[in-house]
């Protein structure tokens, strides 16, 4: 019943925001860590990175086209690129091309579009893909390599890289264990943490990224810088990262103090694995985490606790992806219990009593 010239209701002005800007800002925040790690792990990593993002975008385009929705606006929102990017950062850098493609199938059609597309999915698509791949192909998904910087002696050239990514895979004798994996393996062999920990790269190397791991797990400092950039741009708030890293640190420190032979310390937990990437980029995923600030704090703490539990007691050395997925399933419940108090009402929704300040 709209008269010409009336249009929608107020407001008639709008913040200079849109979904695309948000996604692009997150991608920008990932650039330093990604660029440095692509340099560290060389051509095979670059190939896998490109294949994974390409596969995610292609998968999104196919799903959207199949359901008769406009393809171009959907792709331009940047969410498929971001999913592909985060997935690529969670893969072993020299993993074969099909991990990226299969991961894209897990992430986009299954974890995202089957739920209704952007904003509708319950679980973080990149983490669904990572966990799906890890459970299905445990050997391939844990074939880490130590850094082989681009153009350095002994690093694979483009031709060799094509062999690695699209052909034979990681050459023999190159693979190395991640720090978390090494400590866990040593523990199962009866070697206490106090003896295995000195053999992993020191904290500085860990923080800079000079160690084996996925693109997003190494160079903690650059990932952290990206996360702080997101906070400065108000894309994310402190609640989720502080909750997650805080819980991880507290649990690590407490248990390490009680039994240093069995438990790694808090700082080691923070700099190893995907802790920082998870805290700033994965657990903060808008769609799959709570909408209120208190909810995000609870969500972050839950992610941190579960990560510590899985790393410490479960069969897998790294638990960030599992922890985030488990907490994703709790998001609707957390949302329900962390709604703000309404103006003029008590927490249970009843109007405030008419009392006056003295």
């Amino acid at each position, binding site marked *: 019943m709209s*008269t010409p*010239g*009336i*249009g*929608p*209701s*107020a*407001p*008639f*002005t*709008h*913040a*200079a*925001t*849109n*979904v695309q*800007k*948000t996604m692009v800002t997150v991608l920008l925040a990932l650039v330093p860590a990604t660029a440095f790690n692509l340099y560290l792990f060389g051509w095979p990593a670059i190939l896998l990175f490109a294949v994974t993002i390409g596969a995610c975008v292609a998968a999104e385009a196919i799903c959207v086209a199949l359901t008769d929705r406009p393809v171009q*606006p959907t792709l331009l*929102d940047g*969410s498929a690129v971001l999913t592909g990017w985060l997935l690529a950062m969670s893969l072993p850098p020299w993993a074969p091309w099909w991990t990226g493609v299969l991961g894209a199938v897990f992430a986009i059609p299954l974890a995202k579009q089957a739920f209704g*597309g*952007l*904003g*509708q999915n319950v679980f973080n698509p990149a983490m669904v893909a990572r966990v799906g791949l890890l459970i299905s192909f445990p050997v391939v998904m844990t074939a880490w390599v130590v850094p082989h910087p681009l153009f350095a002696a002994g690093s694979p050239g483009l031709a060799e890289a094509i062999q690695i990514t699209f052909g034979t895979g990681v050459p023999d004798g190159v693979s190395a264990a991640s720090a978390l994996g090494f400590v866990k393996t040593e523990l199962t062999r009866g070697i206490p943490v106090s003896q295995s920990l000195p053999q992993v790269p020191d904290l500085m190397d860990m923080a800079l990224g000079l160690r084996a791991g996925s693109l997003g797990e190494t160079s903690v400092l650059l990932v952290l810088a990206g996360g702080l950039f997101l906070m400065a741009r108000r894309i994310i708030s402190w609640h989720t990262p502080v909750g997650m890293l805080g819980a991880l640190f507290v649990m690590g420190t407490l248990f390490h103090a009680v039994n240093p032979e069995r438990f790694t310390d808090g700082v080691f937990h923070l700099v190893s694995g995907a802790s920082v990437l998870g805290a700033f980029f994965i657990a903060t995923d*808008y*769609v799959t*985490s*709570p*909408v*209120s*600030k208190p909810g*995000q704090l609870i969500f972050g703490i839950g992610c941190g606790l579960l990560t510590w539990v899985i790393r410490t007691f479960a069969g897998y050395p790294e638990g960030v992806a599992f922890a985030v997925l488990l907490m994703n399933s709790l998001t609707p419940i957390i*949302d329900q219990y962390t*709604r*703000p*108090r*309404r*103006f*003029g*009402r008590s927490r249970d*929704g009843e*109007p*405030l*009593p*008419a009392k*006056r*300040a003295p």
Partner: protein
Amino acid sequence: MGSLFPVRGGVHPDYRKGLTSEKAIVAMAMPELLYLPLQQHVGAPAQLLVAAGERVRKGQMLARCDGAISAPLHAPTSGLIKDIAEITAPHPSGLAQTTVVLEPDGLDEWTNLPEPIPDPLNADPQVIRERVANSGIVGMGGAVFPAAVKLNLGSQYKIETLLVNGAECEPYVTCDDRVMREYASEVIDGARIMAHVMGAAKIIVGIERNKPQAIEAMTKAAAPYAEITVIGVPAQYPMGYAHELILATTGRETPAGKRTAEVGVVAYNVGTTRAIDHAVRLGRPLISRVVTVSGGTVREPGNIVVPIGARVADVIAFCGGLTSQPARLINGGPMMGQPLPSLDVPVVKGTAGILALAASEVNDAPESPCIRCGSCVDACPCGLVPVEMAAYIRKDNLQGAARLGVGDCIGCGSCSWVCPSHIPLVQYFQYANGVLSDQERERRKNARTKSLAEAHAHRLEKVAAAKAATQAARKGAPSHTPTDKASA
């Protein structure tokens, strides 16, 4: 400066007040015709006192109060009543309303105004209330609630504080800013008169800090009076919402669904305060108001004294006309204003702004899927969860939205403004509240019908039982079968 209390949520829109904030208030020339709708206030429309062909003088009452909540209407100038007609009202519905069409005679000749009330600060409150009621003054911040009715609250509640609302949180709008800068003493005087009427011991003036000159002028005007505190509040939309400003300046939170008087505070817009001052001190009714005319397509934006009833087109012409076709034409501010159905509608008592915005100012974009970013939750000053309510409404589960408190939405537009997906959330909530109130009306009607029907059936039963009893008595033997009684 008084103390401040934190308020929840809010946003920081681009204020763009600089377009008009340094433009002193000027009066526009009297247009050729004035269009005066009988309803420019909340409540019953005023009742006509004049007929077409009659000559009226400036300030003469054209229509009187009808009922407890209503406001009279006065002639903004002298002239001839040309017509009483149904004319499009300044409302997005575009519906027509009974309107007095007045042709000014150019003499601007005053009627015999009521005498100024001597020494109003010691006068009988009832005398002042009557004067305000007869002067047609309504809330000029946009709520257009009859001011005299609000003044009566002093007899029902214990009012401790009168809050003068100079927050003016809407972008573009600067009429209150200019009134405070240019007529601070009148605003303060009006506030003191009203505080006296309501028995309020304290007066607080709340002004957003983006108006330092207004704060300075008001502080200066208030300096002689110990009971007045001028407070600079953060420029944080929607600070001008009375409940919000009361919380920020007094720390008192009005219970949901209650009046602010419940916490001992009554709020008035600065324009209203000044109008009351004029009515009491000069005997003048409300016949004009300051309107901010602004927006990217207005050639000479400004703050204009507009006679009530001037067409928007006349006001814009006074401001040099439009430079290009506006993307939006708004009555009020860009956050809570109403779209104007056309340029031919008149300025009414509640018109604080006329905005003709260019497309670049509107920042419109197609709606995209919700990404659950939670910005709306942070922005909502009412503590609502717009993302969840919108999800329910999209599925037509309005009861679900009602449980989450959609009825508490004040329509401030903060959530819509901040939404990166450009979802028109406020429109969702207004739709839901409209349907819910329809359903509630229907439910009440049904309940009433049902109780009437039950009462009717009950009466019939009683009659039948009485009949049966008389028949049984006539037969001389009481019935031994209880089933008879039950079926009776």
